[in-house]
């Protein structure tokens, strides 16, 4: 009984699966051995000499064990062949070098240059192994602007281009072709040429033109990640939501290879994704953090109490935070002097609401001296362009509301040095049309909302339905 279980159990596969654990040993031990070899040259570390032998021996053994398990593992599943080939032979070379260096060391020969070569081989082998499991762009992903989207290059004038070759093919190249392409045809399926795509794999066609939901390709992409039939395999780079939506769109519209993007029907959503390909970046949300990560000391209690007595709602932004927000909404007969009360809490104050107060340009001087402000509400105050330059030192400012004031684009333009500004509100100001466009160019990272939204009049607004006559 037990024997039968053991026999039914794939021993080679089991051993092969130890590869991911074992590989780290030669990397670490051989590197360390090389370091010992070099350090032992100096008198100070001569004592390390005695450790070289044992570390080389262990490193050699683990390198050989890694090679064996790696070879077994490579037979159980399919990996990108080109990468696997290189990884395999570099690994064998590394193991051989470790044998040689151990032999040389035993013969008391000079080993430091061989050790240097060995280190290089270990690093190359490790990198190739990592590329197989994490994807070949794993290391460089941090530098690419488009995150994990298949479309990393921008496509100018996307509507005029061929839908398959400029939108779909790059996705397949990036995420599918490694296993379903010229080098490897898992499931006898190839995605590198239109002819192969239509032909399908060993289970038949994978694309039902006009019906994305019934297409085996889409079905398997949409399977939960823990399903073994999920594509791409869990350990491989995944398709982004946007990639999937583009694939679904292409299949739904007939899986045509010869049509331009504009010739295929598009929903608004797809249109916006396609447009985002033009700029080469996915529509990432502007990341806003209205409070600093680093902590700050407690504000002087007397100053806080003074503010509170004046009717200013001053509160920590959270129970465990010393940062403060202040709202002047309930202050009666406001004067510029009230702003002086903020001076003692200037380090802690990050949100300030002064909207609808009789604030003038002179008063902005005091506001400009609150260096940590992240949100500032100045809507419906008496400030003008003259006062604005006093805010240009608020380098942390992310949100600025100037709605309902007399500021113009000239004055606001002077704030262009505020690098962190993400949201700028200019509702009910004189800034419209061209001025607004200019400001938007000037503040390219800032969402500028000048409002003036309207809800159009529709016939249905005033139509009152009645019961049909006779009821």
């Amino acid at each position: 009984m037990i024997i039968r279980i053991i026999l039914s159990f794939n021993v080679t596969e089991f051993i092969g699966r130890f590869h991911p654990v074992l590989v780290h040993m030669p990397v670490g031990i051989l590197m360390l051995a090389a370091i010992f070899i070099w350090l032992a040259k100096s008198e100070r570390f001569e004592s390390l000499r005695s450790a070289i032998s044992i570390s080389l021996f262990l490193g050699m053994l683990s390198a050989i064990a890694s090679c064996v398990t790696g070879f077994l593992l490579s037979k159980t599943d399919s990996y990108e062949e080109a990468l696997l080939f290189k990884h395999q032979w570099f690994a064998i070379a590394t193991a051989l070098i470790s044998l040689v260096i151990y032999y040389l060391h035993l013969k008391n020969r000079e080993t430091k240059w061989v050790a240097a070569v060995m280190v290089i081989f270990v690093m190359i082998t490790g990198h190739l192994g990592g590329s197989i499991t994490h994807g070949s762009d794993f290391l460089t992903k941090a530098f690419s602007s488009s995150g994990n989207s298949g479309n990393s290059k921008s496509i100018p004038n996307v509507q005029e281009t061929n839908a398959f070759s400029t939108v779909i093919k790059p996705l397949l190249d990036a995420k599918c072709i490694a296993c379903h392409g010229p080098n490897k045809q898992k499931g006898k399926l190839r995605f590198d040429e239109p002819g192969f795509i239509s032909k399908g794999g060993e289970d038949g066609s994978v694309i039902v033109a006009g019906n994305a939901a019934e297409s085996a390709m889409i079905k398997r992409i949409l399977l939960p990640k823990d399903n073994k039939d999920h594509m791409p395999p869990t350990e491989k780079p995944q398709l982004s939501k946007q990639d999937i939506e583009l694939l679904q769109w292409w299949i739904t519209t007939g899986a045509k290879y010869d049509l331009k993007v504009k010739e295929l029907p598009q929903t608004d959503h797809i249109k916006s994704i396609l447009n985002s390909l033009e700029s080469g970046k996915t529509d990432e949300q502007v990341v806003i953090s209205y409070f600093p990560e680093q902590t700050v000391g407690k504000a002087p209690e007397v100053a806080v109490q003074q503010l509170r007595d004046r009717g200013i709602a001053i509160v920590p932004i959270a129970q465990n935070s010393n940062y403060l927000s202040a709202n002047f909404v309930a202050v009666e007969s406001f004067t510029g002097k009230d702003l002086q009360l903020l001076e003692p809490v200037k380090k802690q104050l990050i949100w300030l609401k002064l909207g609808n107060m009789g604030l003038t340009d002179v008063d902005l001087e005091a506001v400009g001296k609150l260096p940590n402000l992240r949100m500032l509400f100045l809507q419906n105050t008496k400030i003008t362009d003259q006062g604005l330059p006093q805010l240009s030192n608020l380098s942390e400012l992310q949100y600025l509301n100037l709605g309902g004031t007399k500021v113009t684009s000239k004055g606001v333009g002077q704030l262009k040095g505020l690098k962190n500004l993400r949201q700028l509100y200019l509702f009910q100001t004189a800034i419209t049309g061209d001025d607004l466009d200019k400001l938007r160019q000037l503040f390219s990272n800032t969402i500028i909302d000048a409002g003036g939204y309207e809800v159009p009049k529709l016939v249905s607004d005033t139509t009152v339905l009645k019961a049909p006559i006779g009821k």
Partner: protein
Amino acid sequence: MSDKQNQRLLKEAEHAVLQQYTRRHFLKDGAMGFGALALGSLLGGCFGKSSASSQTLFDASNPLVSRPPLFPGKAKSVIYIHMAGAPSQLELFSYKPELAKLDGLDCPQSLLEGKKFAFIRGVPKMLGPQAVFRQRGNSGLWLSDNLPHLATVADEIAMLNAVTTDQFNHAPAQLLMHTGSARLGRPSIGAWVTYGMGTENKNLPGFVVLTSGGNNPDAGKSVWGSGFLPSVYQGVQCRSEGDPVLFIKDPSGMDRDLRKASIDAINKVNHEQYTEYNDPEILSRISQYEMAYKMQISVPDVMNINDEPQYIHEMYGTQPGKTSFANNVLLARKLVEKGVRFVQLFDWGWDTHGDSAGNAVDIGLVNKCAKVDRPITALILDLKQRGLLDETLVIWGQEFGRTPMQENREGKKMPFKGRDHHSAAFNMWMAGGGIKGGTSYGETDEIGYNIVSGKTEAYDIQATILNQLGFDHEKLTYESQGRNFRLTDLSGKVITDILA
């Protein structure tokens, strides 16, 4: 008078004073003193935090002072719009083309077995969607033509497609949505929020309620009550026609100075009472008097929409001087701008059973939609242009949904097309306040009868609202009847899928 008599009188007086200090006081003080000392040192690591937070939040002398949330919240205030009576999701938000194919057919037995309905009896017929649906905005959210204006701001909305409740009658279902319990006696969400955070404008109430549609919600005023929380946290109902609060004007012959003098005199007596009895409710009462005095000026001021420009009136569709949903929505914006923490709107008249033209899903419902579509859309756009949408959480709520079957009250055919109460699956949506616009969460089956994924209960919605304000719904507690209570009782999880 003899000495003996004198002594007896003295003794009686002493006794009377001692009686004021009851066994209850003694036990309470004892518990607060020795108990707190012992427990605090013994269990500080385990319970110290939660009990401390529930102890310190209520400051009787200034119960509505602005307080920090547990963590920095995205939202500072909430506008919760509840459509009382429960509009039909199948004519507004839930696109079910399969249901159209079944229109007029008998409802299959499998859907009826073991189910209880408010009015449906026997075997009802299926009723196809009585509205045209389209995909809107970049997000492709499905919305019906009944809400054409809202469709233009679809990308600001996070739609909850699979909300569910276990109540199919209005009052308990409304209570569950707002107080976390289908039975009376629990504080409403607005009360919890003002208890937790106070309010930023000391001249206005922290929690304001406005109703429209001709009736208060079926659950009555308990749905904005304070339950076992101090009464200062209950919603203040304001009227949008006539005096915003009844009896807010000084009676004739009483000028403002005299009013002030009389309130000062009352407060002086109350202070004396407080020094004698130490009852925090007295302090609370003093601050209430002072606030009422201030509100005599500030409330009529904020509740006056005459000063709004014509452009805003056209945008919201408001008509000053009348009670209307549109007026209430504009007021909600004004209140939030003025630092009010929680504004609760109820609009009555969505109970579309099909018993009259006004209650038909293809007549009355359409008319009702036309009345709310413009103001709600205007609210979202107006908050946006004022830079307030990110810190104001807007919620479209309802107590339950409506059946995919046509109602057949008492087994008879109804004169108009209507739908019965349906608790198993319906829609709600949120916008602003750190909610990710253009998202959609949860799924129902092909006819909108049951939930397939993304089940969302009242508790989950409450937990999400509190989360956006900066509270962990499990930690915002209040001790009553010997244990800590919380809004979400024993359930609730934040719907992280719709958060920005």
